[in-house]
């Protein structure tokens, strides 16, 4: 054990029952080439500070639970290796979210926005008896990239617009909505566009693009946002063109 390699990690700690503000605490961890940041956090919880709080589950970049800031960049702790930080690193909770305790953040906003964009098939009247609802490879390719999202929240930590305005629906929620808008089995695009077209919808995005850079599954939320802007603009143009027609219909109903 004496010749074990050691690395200094500064971890942000915050106990709401005791602390008025978060602070950085230094910890030494043993490591080798296979040690991930999640392994390091688990080592500390098991051996040094049992009260250290962090979220994790699958340990293989599927569940999206262990998002943290490592040296100021949003990363999945399970997918980021200590060997790439030979001079040590700082581990903090995801920015742009309120800190509940240590590395655990409150994701309520994020989850509500996902729910608001209805990421499920809408308006498909097919019954199981109708058989499988097949798609061509080209139809799948239209949305496949966007379906990779694992709801880890890294893109929200990367988005300065969400940091400045927490009412912004944000990258992942809009990406998931767009994924269903592009699905040939779905008919709920107009329903979702009503939410996407709002002030805190797609137009709050200024295309910083860092969300796509940090996405651990390469879901490319920045692309989804820009494509939604195009859809939103077309929907606006269509609404203007239909305005006169709708007015005539509503006047006709009144009389």
């Amino acid at each position: 054990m004496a010749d074990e390699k050691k690395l200094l990690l500064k971890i942000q700690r915050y106990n709401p029952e005791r602390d008025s503000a978060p602070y950085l605490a230094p910890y030494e961890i043993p490591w080798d080439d296979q040690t991930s940041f999640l392994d390091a956090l688990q080592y500390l919880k098991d051996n040094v500070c049992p009260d250290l709080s962090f979220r994790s589950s699958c340990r293989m970049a599927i569940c999206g639970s262990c998002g943290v800031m490592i040296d100021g960049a949003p990363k999945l702790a399970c997918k980021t290796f200590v060997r790439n930080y030979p001079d040590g690193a700082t581990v903090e909770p995801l920015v742009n979210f309120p800190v509940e305790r240590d590395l655990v953040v409150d994701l309520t906003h994020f989850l509500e926005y996902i729910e608001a964009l209805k990421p499920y098939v809408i308006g498909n009247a097919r019954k199981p008896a109708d058989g499988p609802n097949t798609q061509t490879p080209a139809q799948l390719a239209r949305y496949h990239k966007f379906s990779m999202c694992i709801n880890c929240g890294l893109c929200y930590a990367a988005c300065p617009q969400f940091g400045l305005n927490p009412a912004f629906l944000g990258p992942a929620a809009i990406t998931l909505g767009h994924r269903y808008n592009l699905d040939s089995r779905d008919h709920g695009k107009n329903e979702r566009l009503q939410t996407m077209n709002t002030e805190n919808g797609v137009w709050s995005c200024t295309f910083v693009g860092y969300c796509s850079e940090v996405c651990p599954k390469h879901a490319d939320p920045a692309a989804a946002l820009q494509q939604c802007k195009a859809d939103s603009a077309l929907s606006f143009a269509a609404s203007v063109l239909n305005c006169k027609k709708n007015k005539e219909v509503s006047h006709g109903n009144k009389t």
Partner: protein
Amino acid sequence: MATKRKPYVREVDCCWWKGNPYYRFYMLREGCSVFMVWVSLLFLLFLFSPSSFATLIKNPIICLLNFAAFLASLLHTKTWYDLTPKALNLPEAKLAAIVKWLWAVTIVFGALVLLLSLF
């Protein structure tokens, strides 16, 4: 039992973009628009007072400003074309061809404007 939750909210300060190279480049990209305002003002001057415009553009400081505006517009064009594929849901091969076409049209149009202004 009363909750012991006390979520700590970290404020975003006005210098949020300084600590990250990606954000700094984003600010530079968006900052190019300041030079576009300058060029628009010059064009307005040309419309309302062509003689003052002709005198003004010979000033070395104005020449420097115009050269900076030219570099800014080049950077803006490069970043804009690089980001164009994001807004289009098309196969990779088609996107690469579209970006090449955008550059081809820009270069041909730029050369045409240059020729027209010289002769």
